[in-house]
């Protein structure tokens, strides 16, 4: 993707580093390290910190598709990994403090699944999907698509990092879900492709990262969370729990999102993505809860708390996203950092 615009001193120093000539890179890295540690130390709410979430997003992006004009070898630059780890540590501490865990179930797959389903059912967060179904304006539909584009145009990729880190039943379950996410090898059914099609149908640009500059910190945080869990082997439990909860809170909302687009007269080219998720995620939630999350706890019981943490983090972090968007809309503001017309 193209490099985004800076949002503060840390992202400015990072972009400097990424675009510096090799002979100036060490100086740029040293500068980045100093400013990052200062800003991290002072940041009280990392989930809403535009500068740090954008920095984290870019550091993760080096592991996915990279940036136009940036040396691919920077993916494993130790100085960048150090900055990434410093942001992750501070953010993890804030997340662990903010996210309550449910009571521990027995170390059996079905008991784990039951706890996760109960956790999902007890969630009383605000319903963005209901608002989209009933009230969202045409412009708000665009905003919604843009907010999610940052994760959905690479849907399933962050969870794929976990595959080689799992074994047995959990691995089989993850692969079953992921294969379906990737359209079982059929390009036109790949979920990220369906999302691109939805964006095109709504008249938006479907290129990954096209709207990065207007996506707020909290939505970057939601996307970053998946990469954070996916890229750290120690957090494979959280990655599994996250995917399970994501699937468990998907079917019913996606039906409502689809209804919102139908209400505005959109046809199947736009609603296919949502309709597909109603059906697919009703399958995935069973596999992800029982085989992936439950199976993982049976084979690695010490990961139970991380599975619960990952699951609960979906409700909390994606809840913040929903709250932010609804709050803006109900007050007649855009939920983006700037109007759509200014992007891309």
């Amino acid at each position, binding site marked *: 993707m193209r490099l985004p615009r800076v949002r503060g001193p840390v992202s400015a120093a990072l972009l400097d580093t990424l675009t510096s000539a090799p002979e100036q890179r060490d100086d740029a890295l040293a500068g980045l390290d100093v400013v990052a540690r200062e800003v991290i130390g002072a940041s009280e709410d990392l989930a809403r910190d535009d500068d740090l979430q954008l920095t984290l997003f870019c550091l993760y992006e080096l592991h996915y598709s990279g940036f136009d004009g940036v040396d691919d070898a920077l993916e494993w630059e130790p100085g960048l990994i150090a900055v990434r780890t410093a942001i992750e540590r501070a953010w993890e501490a804030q997340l662990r403090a903010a996210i309550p865990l449910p009571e521990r179930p027995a170390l059996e797959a079905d008991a784990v699944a039951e706890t996760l389903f109960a956790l*999902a059912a007890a969630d009383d967060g605000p319903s963005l999907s209901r608002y989209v179904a009933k009230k969202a304006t045409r412009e708000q539909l665009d905003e919604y698509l843009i907010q999610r584009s940052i994760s959905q145009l690479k849907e399933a990729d962050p969870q794929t990092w976990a595959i080689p880190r799992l074994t047995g039943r959990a691995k089989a379950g993850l692969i079953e879900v992921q294969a*379906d996410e990737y359209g079982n090898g059929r390009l036109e059914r790949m979920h990220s492709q369906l999302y691109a099609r939805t964006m095109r149908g709504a008249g938006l640009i479907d290129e990954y990262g096209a709207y990065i500059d207007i996506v707020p910190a909290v939505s970057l945080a939601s996307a970053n969370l998946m990469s954070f869990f996916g890229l750290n082997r120690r957090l494979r439990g959280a990655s599994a729990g996250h995917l399970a909860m994501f699937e468990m809170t998907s079917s*019913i909302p996606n039906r409502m999102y689809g209804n919102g687009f139908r209400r505005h007269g959109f046809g199947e080219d736009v609603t296919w993505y949502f309709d*597909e998720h109603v*059906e697919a995620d009703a399958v995935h939630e069973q596999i992800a809860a*029982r085989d992936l999350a439950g199976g993982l706890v049976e084979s690695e019981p010490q990961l139970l708390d991380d599975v619960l943490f990952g699951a609960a983090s979906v409700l909390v972090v994606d809840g913040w996203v929903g709250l932010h968007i609804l709050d803006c809309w109900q007050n007649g503001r855009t939920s983006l950092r700037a109007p759509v017309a200014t992007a891309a």
Partner: protein
Amino acid sequence: MHEETPVIVACPNGPLLVRGDVPIENPDGTPVQKNRRTVALCRCGASVLKPWCDGSHKIIGFRTDLDHGDVPQ
């Protein structure tokens, strides 16, 4: 080649998960198009995508662990 035996998993409080090559047909013998390898068949009756599960069992509080005559709370 080894033929895979299809397996149906009766998910507690949820659908029947069908893994493997099982054709699903309408009463007149026409096939119901399967969009994925593993499918979930609704057994709560509330899905609007029948025969597939659409998650509605959670909205109606469908339970599979009740005796006959019990009603959900």
